């Protein structure tokens, strides 16, 4: 009984996370709620962007989950503006995962009228590496880059740019003071990602956000609302699925 045997396993370590993510995506989509996973380095303007987009939504009702390592400042800030924001603290972990979102969604109240659409914005932990590797049940992965970080970001963090469904270049009000090389930046983006729309925005002046809000509302309107059935349905809103 002490012989050593080899067992062929061939199992993905992330299978359980991905399975829960798929459930969240399907479940919320069926209820008319589009999930937007917002990622970007610390200070790129993730919270500023949420506020700007939410102000410009025409039809969809906004909800927010703020991921933060330990503080709840952004959540308090959003709540004070009358935005329904909920907090997840990861206490050290550098990304949100699908089970965290699944639990939080259970606590939240998505009181939508018949056929009304919602958009659940999830501000991920400020980090360009780990959040790109963990799907949390989003329909849309929204990447925030800035002109202040330099034009080489796609070359340094290729996975984030590859996986993004929409890319925002924020802080364009600062372009006159910087040497942001947009051509080099876009060459990198397009090598990695042929389809994601790229919007230039400014959290300071508000430019560009009306277009972003309209694009997201288009995605929300395209959700296939139906009676929730248990089990895991089709995959039609699930882009960039890597296994």
């Amino acid at each position, binding site marked *: 009984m002490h012989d050593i045997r080899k067992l062929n*396993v061939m199992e993905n*370590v992330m299978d359980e996370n991905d399975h829960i993510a798929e459930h969240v995506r399907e479940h919320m989509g069926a209820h008319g709620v589009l999930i937007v996973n917002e990622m970007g380095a610390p200070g790129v303007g993730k919270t500023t962007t949420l506020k700007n987009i939410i102000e410009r939504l025409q039809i969809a009702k906004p909800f927010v989950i703020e991921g933060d390592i330990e503080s709840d400042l952004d959540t308090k800030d959003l709540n004070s503006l009358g935005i329904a924001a909920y907090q997840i603290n990861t206490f050290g*972990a550098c990304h949100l995962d699908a089970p965290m979102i699944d639990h939080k969604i259970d606590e939240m109240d998505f009181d939508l009228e018949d056929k009304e659409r919602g958009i659940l914005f999830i501000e991920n932990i400020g980090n360009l590496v780990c959040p790109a*590797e963990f799907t949390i049940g989003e329909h849309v992965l929204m990447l925030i880059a800035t002109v202040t970080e330099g034009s080489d970001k796609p*070359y340094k963090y*290729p*996975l984030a740019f590859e996986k993004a469904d929409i890319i925002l270049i924020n802080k364009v009000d600062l372009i006159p003071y910087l040497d942001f090389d947009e051509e080099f930046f876009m060459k990198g983006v397009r090598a990695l990602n042929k389809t994601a729309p790229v919007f230039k925005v400014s959290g300071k002046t508000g430019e560009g956000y009306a277009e972003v809000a309209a694009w997201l509302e288009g995605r929300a309107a395209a959700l296939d609302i139906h009676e929730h059935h248990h089990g895991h349905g089709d995959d039609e809103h699930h882009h960039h699925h*890597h296994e």
Partner: protein
Amino acid sequence: MHEYPITEQIIKICSQHCAEAKADKVVSVSLVVGDYSGCVGESIQMYFDIISEGTPCESAKLKIKRVKPKLKCPACGEFFERAPMSFACPKCGVDGEPTEIGKEFYIEEIEVE
């Protein structure tokens, strides 16, 4: 600090396979990890040692095979590792496209006794 839940998952999968094979303990675990699954850092063996205590995986040895990401050239079909600050194909200069190579994160095999 993302290793904790990941390591728990690895131990869970290995313990299941060990039990199904009616073996007593896991001796080694072979993981295949693409560099884009950067979540698996140097400290994983340390987490593994702590979390596996009292499980069939206790004192098992982790063997990690790293896989470097490769791009595929849409012009000539070459698979290549990119140079810093470039996606250009070394053969023909056209920008390569992302592939699944480098995104692996799976348990290949385990040894049990």
